[in-house]
């Protein structure tokens, strides 16, 4: 991101209430121009509500939404230069694929001939030209998805909103579409706001992610930020797999916090602002940051016993029982087996991690 980059969507203190129920509690966020931005969270976290507020299908109870500096929260959907790819695609069943894609252009006042020509070009972009005369029902789910995308992109919106558009596709197609979406975003240079509950999808595609839960934003950052430096327990738990352990902080010295976990085990991690000596907090260690050995290797080594090895294709997941302490999950990549050791169940060994691999979390 450069300094000259504009803010595409600016949400300021947006609140959404349905009667007594508050779906969104004062959300503020700025989405930059040309950004692939993802709203990520479990169902009911308010991500779709926020998207629908930007599209104009939901009123904003309090707060404001700006689109490139213009206040839009009181405009009807047809007056907002943003388009939506709906979860169920909502392709008009009585129109051909070409007419579907041309619809937005025609409604904007482009002549029919011109609209159809541009729609044809859009269909070329998503490689569906040969289907332009068909009805939506004659297309497969993946093709319908691409038509929905072409239809929403055809009027050249300033921002494209995508409401879990990949959730109806099977895994292989979903992976392919993830890359296609990302390429399309780069090619068109249009800001994409993508809603999903799939953390892997969010990590794969996004420039930045807003993790949401219970109507609040939990963390905003790049995929690496969110994965490597989760702010709180919810984010650490929701994104990827992790070992969440309860620890008490014994001492803090020069940026390092000494903590102990059950069974007399000790660990040093980076100190976090707001977590002082004596606090009982959670700590997160990603399973792939751990490795096993006969004898302690790093300064942070914990003694334990192998409980179980689980083969999951690309990795081997090992469950380690720390004596009198919690269980650890250790993941060893299959490609790494030359360097890293796998022990038989029942073997006593050490679990090692680099200093800083473990993170203290605010609750």
């Amino acid at each position: 991101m450069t300094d000259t980059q504009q803010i595409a969507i600016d949400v300021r203190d947006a609140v959404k209430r349905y009667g007594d129920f508050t779906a969104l509690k004062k959300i503020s966020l700025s989405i930059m121009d040309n950004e692939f931005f993802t709203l990520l969270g479990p169902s009911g976290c308010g991500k779709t509500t926020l998207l629908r507020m930007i599209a104009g299908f939901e009123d904003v109870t309090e707060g404001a939404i700006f689109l490139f500096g213009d206040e839009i929260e009181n405009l009807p959907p047809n007056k907002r230069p943003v388009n939506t790819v709906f979860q169920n695609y909502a392709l008009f069943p009585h129109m051909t694929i070409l007419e579907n894609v041309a619809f937005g252009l025609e409604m904007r006042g482009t002549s029919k001939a011109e609209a159809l020509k541009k729609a044809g070009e859009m269909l070329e972009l998503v490689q569906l030209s040969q289907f332009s005369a068909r009805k939506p029902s004659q297309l497969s789910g993946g093709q319908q998805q691409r038509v929905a995308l072409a239809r929403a992109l055809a009027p050249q919106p300033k921002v494209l909103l995508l409401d879990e558009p990949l959730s109806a596709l099977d895994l292989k197609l979903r992976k392919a579409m993830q890359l296609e979406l990302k390429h399309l975003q780069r090619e068109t240079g249009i800001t994409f706001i993508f809603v999903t509950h799939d953390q892997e999808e969010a990590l794969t595609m996004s420039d930045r992610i807003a993790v949401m839960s219970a109507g609040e934003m939990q963390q905003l950052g790049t995929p690496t930020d969110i994965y490597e430096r989760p702010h709180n327990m919810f984010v650490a738990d929701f994104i990827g797999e992790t070992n969440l352990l309860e620890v008490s902080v014994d001492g803090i010295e020069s940026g390092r916090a000494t903590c102990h976990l059950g069974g007399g085990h000790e660990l040093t991690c980076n100190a976090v602002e707001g977590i002082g000596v004596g606090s009982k907090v959670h700590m997160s260690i990603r399973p792939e940051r751990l490795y096993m050995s006969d004898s302690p290797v790093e300064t942070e080594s914990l003694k334990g016993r192998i409980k179980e090895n689980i083969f999951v294709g690309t990795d081997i997941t090992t469950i380690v029982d720390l004596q009198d302490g919690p269980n650890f999950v250790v993941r060893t990549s299959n490609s790494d087996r030359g360097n890293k050791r796998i022990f038989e169940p029942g073997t006593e060994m050490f679990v090692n991690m680099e200093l800083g691999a473990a993170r203290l979390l605010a609750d």
Partner: protein
Amino acid sequence: MASKQFNIKSYTGFKAITLLCLVVLYAPLVVVTIYSFNASQSLTNWEGVSLRWYADVFTGPESGKFKTAAKNSFFIAIVAATVATTIATLAATGMVRGGRFRFRTVSFGLISLPLMVPEIVLAVATLIFFNSIGFERGLLTILLAHIAFCIPFAYLPISARMQGIEDSYEQAALDLYATKRQAFTKILLPLMMPGIISGFLLAFIVSLDDFIITNFVKGAGVETLPTAIFGSVKQGIKPNIMAISTMLLSVSIVMVTISYFVSKSDNTK
């Protein structure tokens, strides 16, 4: 029992009961249709195939009366079905797309109530209503009454259809810069069309067939086909009545068949 399936076809007497039902339902219609081609003056003696009674309907002594009645009937049926369908379409749009409002269930009950009220009660009520507001009975009163009682018949297929249309289509239209009016005319209306046509045909048939209400609210001298037939029958049944009935029956069959195929053609899939 040979069949262990719980198929109703395997029940004892299934065939016999089915046959009985079909005979009870259709035997009178079949008899009337066959005897309308009878060459005889008599209702019951078969004397060979002939179209004489069809000719009689168009050229016989009663032909003038029947022609006027048929014109009235078709005029009333077309106008009443058109107006009723328009009102029903708007009502369905309001009821299905109006979100939740307080009297939604009550409104739905009110719209469909006339279907359950005995027709004679409706007829008497309509007559009293026209009398109390001082309306002179004639073609207009028949037309107004028909519009009113056709609305629920048109409403049912239209609202059933509309409930099957997700509102995301209209949202997508609005999202793609259509005004609310354009979203209605370009998206919702075409999707509703099978329901609307089906509702129109149903209303048309109901209006064309109606006797009781028409007989109450028609003025002296104004006849529709059913009342003209009834008037003619009072002076003794002649075979020309069977010919008219058969023609009326064919119109109904054609309409119902069209309605069936239209409602089956699902353009949302």
